[in-house]
Every structure is written in structure tokens, then in C-alpha cells.
């Protein structure tokens, strides 16, 4: 017998039995969990023999004896904030921390809450939407999330509701070897609008495996930001499902700077005519960090537009992967789909893998992709140095310019400015100089 997938589900089986025995929740949810756990066991722990996991080395993660989450206290000062009025939900080790959270007055029937609490108080708002979106059926950690999620956030806006203030969702992992499966559910009914900022932070060697489901009704508008800034030892294996109805617009910004291994799988279904999505990804990695985006955008209806713009900046022995699929269904005519992957290598040992894929089953479409990987332009560096700018500062300026191009797509000013500072700090660059 060959060494097949290790039976990693073994420690999960008793854990799952314990977990569900202590949950009090609607039968429909318990059934979802059992089905998902069965799916996880059937899929097994991913191996590098599987194409989708070929470059993702989980061996360091597999040696850890990960524990279920425990309660912990966190110093509020270590949590990220956004300037200006926000709705804020904080989760420590995946559990809602009401003392650190506040939700401002909301329009009628708008819901921004802990998912666990909302499931008790408004099950009719949750059950019809939870785990209903297609995509990532083969993703073991998405299944594991549905089996094990304890809490998370729900944003449910009724038809036409516009929430101006950013909805700031902070997930903090305290020290310890834990596995966390936070869940996010965003449902925007027709013409509703929201701006969501999800921040993953932590101090421990946790496995953070969140699953976000973003469901956009006709004409809905969502600005969604995910900033992964976890501890250097952390593992992040996230999944995002998006479904968009007619003429809706989703703008996703995915920023990854933390963790030793960070991968996000993203499946977008443009399920209504004229839906558009913009996916904007940036990975900053150094030392031995590994950053990975697996993206699939499916155009199921005509006149959809999608744009994938992914960049990485890699130093040391860091590696990045971008695997991006544009899938155009038969009948999805007048689709306009673009994809670019640009990678900047700051060291000879850094590696970027880019795997653009197109499957186009309609004949009247515009699809394009481009991928570049390279070092800093020596001519540009010399030009700056020839004006007196020291070499290190010249290189930092060029890296900042490369990455900031993606950050400039973020319309939420306090967040954009904070990320620009984060970027400059990592490059030891004084951006206030100009």
C-alpha cells in the first residue's frame, strides 16, 4: 500500500463528537455540521499529490497537536482600529467578545451580530443562508469550518439598506496551538450596500481556517477587505464563497502579510446578468513565509465583468502562489474578464508561482490574463541613486510604489492609509517625506 493521505481526521472524529454534544442549536444546523464533517472525512487531509494542493506544504502544520479554542483575555490596545464611526465586532479565539464590540444604531431589520447569538435570536435570518452558496466543494477546510464553527459574524441587510459606516470584524487568536474556524455570513439583499473590513490577528501558532460567505442580491454593492496580519508562526487556511445576482458589484481586497503559511481559496459565482467583481490581492512575504491565493471566477450569466489583480512582494526564501481561473459558462456572452498576476522578487531565493487558467465555453467574450515575475528594475534604482537617494531607500521606494498601486484601489481612506504605513514600516521607509 502506498502512503495515502494521513488519517488526519482521526483526532477530529472524537473532537467532533464532543463538539456537537455540547452545542444547543437548531436541528438544521446540526445536520449541516454532520454532513460537512462526513465530507471532510471523505476528502481527507490535503496532500501534495492533489493538483490544488501541489505547492502547499502542510507538513509543519500536521506535526502540531492543535487544541480546540479556549477562552482568553486580550488587551484591547493590541486590537486594530479604524478611525471614524464603525460597527465593530471582536472575536477572541473565535468567540464573540461583547465588551470589545459595539454596533451603532441600525436601520430597520438590518442585522450585524455574532452569528452564534443571531442563530438563537433570529434563526430564520440565518438558516436559509448558511452554507447555501456553491463553490469550494472539494476544499477540506471549508468543510471543516462548517463542521466546527463556534461563532463568527453575520451581516444581513434587507433590500435597499445602505450602511455607510465600515463594519469592522476583528478576529484575534491568543497564544497557544489552537484550531480556529470562524464563520462569516454577509447577505446583502437587492440594492443593499455595505463596507466590511475583516482583520485576522494573533499571537499564537494557531491554525486559523475561516470561511466567509458573501451573498449579493440584485444591484447590491459590497466592499470587502480582508487583512491577514497573524503571528509569524500562524497558519491561515481561509475560504471565501461569493455569489452575485444581477448588476451587483463586489470589490474584494485581500491583503496578506502574516503567518508562516497563508492560503485563501476564493470562489466567485457571477450568477446574474451584468454582475461585476474586482478582486485585488497583495501578499507581502519574507523569510520562509508562504502566501497563496487560489481563485476561481465563474461567469454564469451574460455581460458580467471581473478583474483579478494579484501582486506579491517576496524577500528571503519566501514563496507565493497565484492560481487563478476564469471560467465562462456557455451562454455567458459579452463577458469581460481580466486577470493579472505580478510578482516582485527581492531576493534570489524567493519564488513566485503563477498559474493562470482560462476555460471559456462562450464565443463572444473578452478575456485576458498576464503574469510577470521579476526583480527590481536596476535602471530605476540607478536613476534614484543618481539623484542622491541611498540604495536601500531607493529600493524601498520602488517596492512601495509596486505594492501601493494595489492599496490605492482601497477607497476606505483610514484603512488605505494604515496599510500604506504598514507597508512603509516593513520597508523602513518614511512616506511622510514627500
Amino acid at each position, binding site marked *: 500500500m502506498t502512503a495515502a493521505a494521513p488519517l488526519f481526521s482521526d483526532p477530529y472524529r472524537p473532537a467532533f463528537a464532543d463538539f456537537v454534544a455540547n452545542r444547543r442549536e437548531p436541528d438544521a444546523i446540526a445536520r449541516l455540521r454532520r454532513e460537512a464533517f462526513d465530507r471532510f472525512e471523505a476528502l481527507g487531509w490535503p496532500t501534495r499529490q492533489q493538483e490544488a494542493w501541489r505547492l502547499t506544504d502542510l507538513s509543519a502544520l500536521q506535526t502540531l497537536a492543535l487544541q480546540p479554542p479556549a477562552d482568553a483575555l486580550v488587551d484591547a490596545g493590541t486590537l486594530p482600529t479604524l478611525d471614524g464611526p464603525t460597527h465593530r465586532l471582536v472575536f477572541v479565539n473565535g468567540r464573540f467578545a461583547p465588551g470589545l464590540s459595539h454596533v451603532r444604531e441600525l436601520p430597520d431589520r438590518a442585522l450585524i451580530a455574532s452569528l452564534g447569538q443571531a442563530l438563537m435570536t433570529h434563526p430564520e435570518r440565518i438558516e436559509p443562508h448558511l452554507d447555501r452558496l456553491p463553490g469550494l466543494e472539494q476544499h477540506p477546510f471549508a468543510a471543516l469550518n462548517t463542521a466546527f464553527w463556534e461563532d463568527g459574524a453575520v451581516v444581513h441587510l434587507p433590500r435597499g439598506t445602505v450602511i455607510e459606516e465600515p463594519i469592522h470584524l476583528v478576529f484575534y487568536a491568543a497564544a497557544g496551538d489552537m484550531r480556529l474556524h470562524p464563520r462569516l455570513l454577509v447577505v446583502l439583499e437587492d440594492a443593499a450596500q455595505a463596507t466590511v473590513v475583516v482583520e485576522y490577528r494573533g499571537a499564537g501558532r494557531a491554525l486559523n481556517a475561516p470561511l466567509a460567505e458573501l451573498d449579493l442580491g440584485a444591484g447590491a454593492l459590497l466592499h470587502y477587505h480582508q487583512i491577514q496580519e497573524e503571528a509569524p508562526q500562524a497558519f491561515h487556511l481561509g475560504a471565501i464563497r461569493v455569489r452575485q445576482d444581477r448588476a451587483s458589484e463586489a470589490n474584494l481586497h485581500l491583503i496578506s502579510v502574516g503567518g508562516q503559511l497563508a492560503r485563501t481559496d476564493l470562489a466567485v459565482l457571477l450568477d446574474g446578468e451584468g454582475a461585476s467583481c474586482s478582486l485585488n490581492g497583495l501578499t507581502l512575504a519574507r523569510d520562509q513565509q508562504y502566501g497563496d491565493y487560489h481563485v476561481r471566477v465563474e461567469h454564469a450569466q451574460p455581460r458580467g465583468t471581473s478583474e483579478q489583480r494579484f501582486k506579491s512582494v517576496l524577500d528571503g526564501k519566501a514563496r507565493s502562489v497565484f492560481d487563478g481561473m476564469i471560467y465562462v459558462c456557455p451562454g455567458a456572452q459579452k463577458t469581460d474578464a481580466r486577470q493579472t498576476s505580478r510578482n516582485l522578487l527581492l531576493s534570489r531565493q524567493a519564488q513566485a508561482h503563477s498559474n493562470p487558467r482560462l476555460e471559456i465555453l462562450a464565443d463572444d467574450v473578452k478575456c485576458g490574463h498576464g503574469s510577470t515575475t521579476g526583480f527590481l528594475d536596476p535602471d530605476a534604482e540607478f536613476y534614484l541613486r543618481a539623484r542622491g537617494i541611498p540604495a536601500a531607500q531607493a529600493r524601498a521606494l*520602488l517596492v512601495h510604489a509596486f505594492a501601493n498601486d494595489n492599496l490605492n484601489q482601497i477607497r476606505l481612506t483610514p484603512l488605505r492609509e494604515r496599510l500604506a504605513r504598514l507597508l512603509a514600516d516593513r520597508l523602513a521607509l518614511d512616506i511622510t517625506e514627500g
Partner: protein
Amino acid sequence: MLEIRNLHVTVEGREILNGIDLTIHPGETHAIMGPNGSGKSTLANVIAGREGYVVTEGEIRFDGKNLLEMDPETRACEGLFLAFQYPVEIPGVANLYFLKAAVNATRKYRGESSVDAMDFWDLVHERMELVKMDESMLKRSVNEGFSGGEKKRNEVFQMAVLQPRFAVLDETDSGLDIDALKVVADGVNALRNSERGFLVITHYQRLLDYIVPDHVHVLFNGRIVRSGGKELALELEEQGYALYNEEPGRARRAAA
């Protein structure tokens, strides 16, 4: 202020300059003319410190200091400026930010504090007028999407802001129409004074109608084969470089 002695330079193992001697005093403007491939741009790049140029023999001194031991940024901070033949586009770095970073780098090198924001703004505006540059160019990324003329004007603008003590203009006239050429030349002439030296490198005599040099040198096959006053440029314009091309022996005798 600039002394070049017996300079030999190879690029990828090929000798491009083989024994250049040139002395430029404060307040002087020298022109170097020569056909394509004579080594003009190599000389400019070696002075500025670009990588890939190997000095196998000889030296360059700038105010008595060994220039070849300095990295490019130190040369710039010491007061040396190269106006690039091909200015580089730098997407994402705004012109104004870039200029301020450059000014402050030089000030830091001299032990001075960062430039006052208002003083800097005044200086920039004054110098912009010198080269008839539009204010919108300050906010644009360095040279990105600039026309050939705008790029060259931006070089002279940078020079006007940085106020170097010695400037090398590498084919600043190439790709310019006559109006742009006049603007660029006016900008350069406005900076000429008794302290500042210039080395103007050009293929054509045309630029020297507007930036009138004190000395003209002919560079051919990596050597200065002839030196003279400004009238030498006119002579070259009439006779071309064929003289040197066909009879290198005669050219060397002429230089001796």
C-alpha cells in the same frame, strides 16, 4: 573641478574608452562630440557611477576626491548630476515626492536638516517656470507617460532644483524639436555661473548653438582625438566625423 586621467573602461570585456584625459575647471562648459559608438555615453555613465562599467586604468577626481570610489548616491550628494539620455519611468513614485527625497538625501549628507516644506514649494515653483513645466507634472509619476521632450525638460528641472556643482548632459538634445531644445538650453544657461561646470555630450552641433561651450572635444574610438574652441563644433558640422572614421591615423596626429 573634474579631472579625468588616462581613463580606460571596459563593458562586458570590450574596451570602450582607452585613455581619456580631460580637465574641467569651475565655470567652464565643455562639449564632447562624437559619432555613435565612440564612447560618449560610456563616459557619462562612468562619471555617474552606473554598474557594469569597469575602469581598468586611470582615475577621475572631483574636487580632488577619488570619484570612482564613491557609490552613485555619494557622487550626487557631492554635487554631481547626470541628465540621462533615457530618463527612466518610475510608476507609483510621484515627481514631487522623488525630488523632495533627493533634496533631503543631499541635505542629510551635508549634515543639514530636512528642507522646510514652504521653502521647497517656492523653489520648485520658481524652477518649474525656468523649464516651462506644468504643475500637473509634479503629481504624476516620475517620467511615466511623459513625451520625449517632457522627459528631457524634467531632467533639466531636476537639475535646477538640486543645483549641482557639476552636471553631465548626456544627449539631452536627442528627440527634441527646436522649441523644446530652446527651452532646455535656456534652462541650462540660466544655471551657468562661475562656480558650476558642465559637460555637454552630443552627437550634433545644433545644441551648441544654444549652449555655447568654452571647449569642444571630439571623441572617437574611445579617445579624445581633437580639442578646440567652440568653432570646432561648426567645423565638425560641415565635415562630419568621416574624417576620423576614414583616417584614424590622421585624426590622432591632429589630436597630438
